[in-house]
C-alpha cells in the first residue's frame, strides 16, 4: 500500500485507518489528522480553493518526511493523503495517519508530519473569495511549529 498519495478524489478516514491498522497486529494506537477547507479565511468568505503541487517532487518530499518520522519516533507505520485541484469549503484536504504500539509516539509523529508538511511539501493554495482569487501567503507560525522539532525550515521568512 502506498504511503503517500496525491489525488484529486476524496478519502475515507475509516477505510484508510482500518487498512493501516489491520495489516499489523502490533498496532495499539491510531492517530489521525484531517485538514479541511474553512469557509472563512482572514474574515473573507472562501467558496473554493485550488491546490497545486509539483508532480514528482511533492511525493518524494513527503516520502522523505515519512522516513524521518519512522526514524525519529517509535511508530509502526504512517500514511499521508493530500488532495490537489479544486476543493470546496468544508471539503477534506489532507489526511495524516500514524500507527504505534502506544499512543504517545503516534500523537507526536502525527504532529511532526503535519508541521513538516505545512512548510516543506511543495503545495500551493489559491483561495476563491467574493473579491476574487488570491494565492495564500506562507505563515511564519508554521515555520515556528517545525522549529520545535529542531528543524529550521525558513519557508515563510
Amino acid at each position: 500500500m502506498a504511503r503517500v498519495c496525491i489525488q484529486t478524489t476524496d478519502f475515507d478516514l475509516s477505510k484508510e485507518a482500518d487498512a493501516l491498522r489491520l495489516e499489523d497486529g502490533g498496532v495499539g494506537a491510531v492517530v489521525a489528522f484531517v485538514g479541511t477547507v474553512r469557509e472563512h479565511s482572514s474574515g473573507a468568505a472562501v467558496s473554493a480553493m485550488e491546490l497545486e503541487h509539483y508532480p514528482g517532487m511533492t511525493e518524494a518530499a513527503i516520502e522523505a518526511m515519512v522516513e524521518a518520522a519512522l526514524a525519529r519516533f517509535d511508530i509502526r507505520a504512517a500514511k499521508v493523503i493530500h488532495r490537489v485541484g479544486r476543493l470546496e469549503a468544508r471539503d477534506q484536504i489532507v489526511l495524516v495517519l500514524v500507527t504505534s504500539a502506544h499512543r504517545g509516539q503516534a500523537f507526536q509523529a502525527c504532529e511532526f508530519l503535519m508541521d513538516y508538511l505545512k512548510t516543506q511539501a511543495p503545495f500551493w493554495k489559491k483561495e476563491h473569495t467574493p473579491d476574487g482569487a488570491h494565492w495564500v501567503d506562507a505563515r511564519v507560525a508554521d515555520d515556528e511549529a517545525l522549529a520545535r522539532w529542531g528543524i529550521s525550515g525558513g519557508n515563510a521568512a
Partner: protein
Amino acid sequence: MTVTVKLRFFASLREKLGEGEALELPEGSTVAAARMALQARGGVHAEALAPGRAVRSALNQKMCTESALLSDGDELAFFPPVTGG
C-alpha cells in the same frame, strides 16, 4: 562553455511566467545567477523574481539554496513559499 537547465515555475510564478523553458547559462552558474539572468529580461520576470520577493527554489526536485551550482540538464524550479496542508 555553457549549461542548459530546464526551468519550472509554480503557483503565482507559473501564472506570471508560464510553465518554464530552457535557459542557457555560463558554466559554473548558481541558482542565484539563473534568477538574476531571468530578472535581467525585465517586465514580468523582473517583477516576479525581484530581489525582495520571497522566492524558493528546487534543483532536480529537491529544495535548494541560491548558492547551489547548476549542471547541464538540471531541472530548476522557482516558486513562492509553500502553503499546503
